[in-house]
């Protein structure tokens, strides 16, 4: 408590201009930066998986299972930063039991549950049911029990049953794509609908969030695939990565154009809040916005991926590019979330000044806590990949033939 106050007095000494007295404290800190970041990774990874399934882009097959499991790992953690930042975390269930229907945040709980339970879990279940039954027969002990339990003790792997799995899985994927759009567009709406805050209040916010989500999710799957192939010491499927990279380029381009449009609109209309936002962008947000998000997260990846569209360097160089570029994009999108969430609170709603922001290492809103919530999904992913290795899936005969 005293530490918190000490922190606030320190911030008070760094206030520039005038802020309302209640605005000195930043209400949403790094955990709320993580929340749209993680949700975006989920939506993006899922959409990449759906490309393979719906549009039958079989060149993406090596990443299909990885993308689904990545989406699930991050989805399971997505609400944790939100819940752990609440003033009363034990009351979090009230959002679900007594939702206030006019609140964007209340409805998010249902969008989240729909996506997790109806889309992700179902799709993965249909995809793995047959394999789980086969693996259960091949293993013993706890692993066998887990396979049995996760397959809900079903045993039917007749061609008819598997065909039904495939058909239902396909239907779920088709429902899943708009759901993934909804999920992350909705996160954008949570910010975009706050009319009190001119930095957030733009109709483009859901669309920008959506495209940046797809970008980040694809980049993450690319990176995870790279790491996994190196750990498994198998050959990297270059046509697959080349295809993903070209998708990444086009979606990043759309994202860049949308964000540019938003800024151009702000500059041209130059509404009441323009001066305070202008100084914000060129002052307290300069490094995170122009250097981290703009230069490293957008311009460099765009130039690199754009070059690959008409000039293909040697495989060795492309392999390096396919690690560096997604990593840059992931950092860039993190700072995009940072600039929205933190940037939106650095200026006063009186438009007369700026407050300051500093994160500590420890504490519920510290760097360590944030790092923890970023590491947990990877731990879950490792477990899921151990239990459900996509590369060990038994291909059906007709699939082998068509491949």
């Amino acid at each position, binding site marked *: *408590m005293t530490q*918190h*106050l000490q922190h*606030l007095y320190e911030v*008070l000494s760094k206030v520039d*201009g*005038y*802020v*309302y*007295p*209640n*605005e*000195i*404290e930043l*209400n*949403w800190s790094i955990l709320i930066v993580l929340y749209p970041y993680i949700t975006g990774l989920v939506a993006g990874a899922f959409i990449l998986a759906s490309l393979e399934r719906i549009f039958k882009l079989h060149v993406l097959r090596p990443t299909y299972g990885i993308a689904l499991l990545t989406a699930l790992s991050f989805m399971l953690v997505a609400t944790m930063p*939100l819940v752990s930042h*609440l*003033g*009363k*975390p034990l*009351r*979090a269930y*009230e*959002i679900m039991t*007594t*939702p*206030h229907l*006019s*609140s*964007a*945040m*209340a409805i998010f*709980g249902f969008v989240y549950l729909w996506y997790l339970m109806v889309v992700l879990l179902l799709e993965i279940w249909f995809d793995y049911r047959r394999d789980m039954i086969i693996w259960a027969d091949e293993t013993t002990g706890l692993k066998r029990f887990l396979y049995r339990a996760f397959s809900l003790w079903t045993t039917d792997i007749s061609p008819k049953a598997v065909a039904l799995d495939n058909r239902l899985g396909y239907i779920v994927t088709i429902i899943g794509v708009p759901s993934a759009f909804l999920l992350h567009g909705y996160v954008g709406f949570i910010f975009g*609908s*706050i*009319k*009190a*805050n001119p930095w957030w209040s733009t109709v483009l916010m859901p669309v920008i969030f959506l495209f940046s989500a797809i970008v980040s999710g694809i980049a993450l799957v690319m990176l995870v695939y790279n790491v996994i192939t190196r750990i498994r010491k198998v050959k990297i499927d270059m046509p697959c990565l080349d295809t993903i990279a070209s998708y990444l380029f086009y979606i990043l381009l759309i994202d860049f154009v949308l964000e540019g449009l938003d800024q151009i609109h702000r500059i041209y209309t130059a509404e*009441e809040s323009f001066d305070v936002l202008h100084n914000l962008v060129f002052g307290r947000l300069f490094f995170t916005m122009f250097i981290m998000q703009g230069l490293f997260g957008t311009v460099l990846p765009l130039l690199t991926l754009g070059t690959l569209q008409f000039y293909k360097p040697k495989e060795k160089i492309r392999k390096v590019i396919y690690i560096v570029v997604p990593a840059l994009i992931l950092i860039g999108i993190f700072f995009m979330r940072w600039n929205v969430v933190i940037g939106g*609170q650095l200026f*006063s*709603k*009186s*438009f*007369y*000044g700026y407050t300051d922001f500093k994160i500590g290492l420890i504490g519920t809103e510290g760097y360590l806590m944030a790092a923890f919530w970023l590491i947990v999904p990877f731990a879950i992913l490792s477990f899921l990949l151990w239990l459900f290795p996509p590369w060990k899936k038994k291909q059906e005969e007709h699939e082998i033939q068509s491949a």
Partner: protein
Amino acid sequence: MTKTNSKLTRRDFFKAGSIIVGGIAVASALTPFDGVLFATEAPKGKGKWYGIGIDISKCIGCGKCANACKLENNVPKDPFYFRSWVEQYTIKNDGTVLVESPNGGIDGFKQSIPDADIFKSFFVPKMCNHCAKSPCVQVCPVGATFETPEGIVLVDENYCIGCRYCVQACPYGCRFINPEKGTAEKCTLCIHRLDKGKNPACFEMCPTEARIFGDLNDPKSKINYFLKNHTCMVIKPNLNTGSKLFYNALSSEVR
């Protein structure tokens, strides 16, 4: 294309069209368009519907209102938590605006600009606008923030989950999270005093009667007299929050 391909004849089209147009015309005649717009919101119900008036030309910046609020409502004493505060605006001859509110004005104000450089200076007391279309009520995910039938916006601290969405949604910076309780807090218009027939603490303490409040539904109330006899304005009218805090002599610099 032959005529048999289309089942809809021209006659059918006109028939259906005139039914739709005629239907709309009849429906409009039954419920005529209400062209009356209220600056804030149409008063709800027939009971009390509170509004607040602050006369900037009367405020002397003594800060007693802000202090009384903290004492009456047990608001944390540190200068980061206010349900009510006072701002000092100083507009310099060169047009620059200086706004200050050291400790919410509780300890009074000192003018840091030499008199010769000042174009004009005034004090603006701030508090919850008790909006009729409150953004804070709209966004609360559990409905812990609500509006009473009298038009007072309150927080149920036993229900609030402390998500801070309402703090973000308030355009006037009138909310904060109580550091001990972890829940949202704001001006209650001293509803506990109103229930006993007393004035809210900040109104009671104002030595110049710069603050008044009353029932907007009562044509003879103080607030209606105030609104009738002054040129009043709300802060940030463009946000359409239905603010019920009306200022007399509000300068355009005030936000």
